């Protein structure tokens, strides 16, 4: 590839000990990573030194496992709250994008839009919001007595939520704060546009107290792969984070989203698709495989099976033989798209519940590639160059080692091939992602 060819976008999907469910048990794992802010600052700075586009954080506003005995075996049972975490990272980095997940079902648009405006200001235009509608029962039980709302209701609220947030971010123009003491003018009234919104879900009247975002407005990220999710993404998102096991799945999703953009007056370049990728890097195939096996050996079966059940949005798989296939499952109110991906994977590779659970425990259904730097770069290049991805959200199985491996071994290989930047192109996250400037809606 030539040097002026399009470059891959690369995110670092951070998590305390690693994406692998048993990573925290690894001899090299830092068990207290999840309560150490300096651990996250140093991982983010590592990704920034490699000129990665962004760091990414998922979220759940609940413990992730109902059974205390199972929850007690997983490091991801507790974590920093991602928006406070992002603020801490913003002032300890200067170039890398900072994206965190927040729910439209369990927040109000004014407060959340205000928080992201603050994050965008603290970071100098590097903040992004991964919009989710929260599919888990355990989250619902922390907020309402009526249980998880149906998928369609959650997305109807999300559509209106996104519109209110976008309007609030447009409420203050650049340079609205004048601070002219002599004339007694603090803010220019012509540059202030209070929102007056009365909708089915929200009534919002007022103004954010922030200055205008240095990148126009925070980046909008989404991961929903249902029809409603893809429509919301096509209308409002700048980046889509997805899960795809095979090249064909990745291409189908890529085409599915990009083909929807025109109906919202957008062009294919206005939205970047970054599927998750968990790389297990070794100098040789044998070494990579040994790293993977060492992690796999640390998974208690019951923890792996419980994680699988939670992503299938069913209470338990314990009524089925571990060495038999997945049972047939009805659609449910939870994550419909991920459920289908798991079922397809089990059928395609003819996996038992135990095997599927162990496979799934590495990257929660995301694409895993085990191999040498050049093998991993080959796989990434194939998807990038054949309409499967604009980039990848990298999910190292173990921190910091897995990210160190990717940064030290895979990124240089991508650069040799002209697939990844040598330096940041711009100052803001939008500029580095190659997204155009934002105009008032």
């Amino acid at each position, binding site marked *: 590839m030539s040097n002026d060819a399009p470059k891959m976008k690369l995110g670092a999907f951070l998590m305390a000990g690693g994406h692998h469910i048993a990573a925290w048990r690894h001899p090299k794992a830092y068990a207290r990573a999840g309560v150490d802010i300096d651990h996250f600052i140093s991982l983010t700075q590592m990704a920034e030194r490699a000129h990665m586009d962004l760091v990414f954080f998922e979220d759940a506003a609940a413990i992730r496992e109902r059974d205390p005995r199972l929850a007690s075996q997983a490091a991801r049972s507790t974590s920093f709250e991602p928006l406070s975490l992002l603020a801490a990272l913003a*002032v300890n980095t200067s170039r890398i994008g900072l994206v965190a997940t927040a729910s439209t079902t*369990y927040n109000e648009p004014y407060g959340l839009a*205000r928080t992201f405006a603050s994050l965008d200001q603290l970071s100098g235009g590097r903040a992004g919001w991964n919009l989710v509608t929260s599919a888990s029962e355990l989250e619902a039980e922390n907020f309402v007595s009526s249980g998880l709302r149906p998928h369609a209701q959650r997305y109807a609220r999300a559509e209106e939520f996104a519109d209110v947030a976008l309007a609030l971010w447009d409420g203050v123009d650049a340079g609205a704060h004048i601070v002219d003491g002599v004339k007694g003018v603090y803010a220019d009234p012509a540059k202030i546009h209070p929102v007056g919104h009365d909708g089915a879900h929200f009534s919002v009247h007022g103004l954010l107290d922030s200055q205008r975002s240095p990148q126009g407005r925070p980046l909008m990220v989404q991961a929903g792969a249902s029809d409603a999710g893809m429509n919301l993404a096509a209308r409002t998102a700048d980046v889509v984070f997805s899960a795809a096991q095979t090249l064909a799945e990745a291409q189908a999703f890529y085409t599915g989203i990009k083909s929807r953009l025109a109906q919202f007056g957008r062009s294919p370049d206005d939205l970047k698709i970054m599927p998750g990728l968990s790389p297990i890097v070794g100098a040789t195939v044998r070494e990579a495989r040994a790293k993977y096996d060492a992690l796999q050996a640390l998974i208690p079966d019951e923890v792996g099976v419980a994680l699988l059940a939670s992503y299938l949005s069913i209470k338990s798989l314990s009524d089925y033989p571990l060495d038999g296939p997945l049972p047939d499952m009805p659609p449910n109110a939870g994550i419909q798209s991920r459920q289908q991906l798991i079922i397809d994977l089990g059928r395609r590779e003819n996996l038992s519940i135990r095997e599927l659970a162990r496979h799934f425990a590495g990257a929660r259904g995301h694409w895993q590639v085990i191999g040498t730097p050049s093998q991993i770069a080959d796989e990434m290049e194939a998807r990038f160059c054949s309409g499967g991805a604009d980039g990848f959200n990298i999910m190292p199985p173990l921190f910091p080692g897995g990210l160190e491996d990717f940064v030290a071994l895979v990124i240089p290989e991508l650069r040799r091939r002209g697939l990844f930047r040598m330096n940041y192109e711009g100052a803001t996250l939008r500029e580095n992602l190659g997204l155009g400037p934002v105009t008032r809606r």
Partner: protein
Amino acid sequence: MMHLGVSLSPFGHHPAAWRQPGATPRALDFRHLVAQVQKAEGGALDFVLLGDAQARRPRIDLPPQTTPFEPTTLVAALATRARKIGFVVTAASGQHELYNLARRFASLDLISQGRMGWNLVASGPTVSWNKEYVAVVTALWDSWDANAFVYDKSAGRFFEPNKMRVLEHRGEHFTVRGPLNVNPSPQGKPLIAQALTAETLALVAHSTELLLVANASQEAGRGMVIEARQLLTGQGRDSSEVRSLANVVPWIGATRAEARNRFDHINGLSSQESLKSWQGRDVIGTATDIADALQESFERGDFDGFTIMPPIAPDDLNAFVDCVVPELRRRGLFRAHYEGATLRDHLSLKPSQQPAR
């Protein structure tokens, strides 16, 4: 020992502070705000208070007294750049889902390693709603027993399951399963602060550890504190585990005449301004005069300390730390350096206790 906090404001707390010559929009930048926090930390002050002009909505103007940042977001950034001083951060109960607020503050307490306090604005619909809100937030913060997290790699045990408290709260106003998905901090849980007024008295007596007194009149403020202490003792709380701090607006000059001139000049600029937002007792004079006034009030037992509201920032903050704090130290009234690591340590409070099971 006297306790001292300082309230953060880009231009200062006086409504006309932004009209001072030299004030520019750059004062709104993070680096100027963190410089103020670091100045306060240099003086070994107990905490920085972050107010919130948006705690009462809706607003359709841009208010100059508080920062242009959402305070529970801003404070996470500040806490990584000032690693000793405590923080007391305003958030309105009516503006945050209960679980989210408990989680945000627990996370802030962990980011700061135990230096966080919540300045509660009880903006919920009723007293009973606010009481239940605060009680459930506190119970969520108590989700984990001390030493619940064992990180036992070989046994595969991240925490001891019998040391997790699943709340299963079903109350009149809230249904919250729990537990909180954030580890406890070195001070156990965040401290709860609240402005003490006739309206907040009942809730203050119920759950507040740091009483913030905004009365311009010392006598009125003192009366409120006595009433609150009686009320909370009557509810079985330990009055010695509560701190009361009065707001003080120090107008500091090299001479009394200079201090008085500053006061008069700025008040002259504020004819069209609202003078009611952040209140406190104006003290006008030299650094020695300010120290005299604080000492007199402190030694009379009116208050455990003071929240300094610099009328002009950063000038009055700098003058307070550089001139008044050393004078208080010479008199043996204020610490020379931090003696503990957490906000509760700074305020000479015990680490938080969990209720028995």
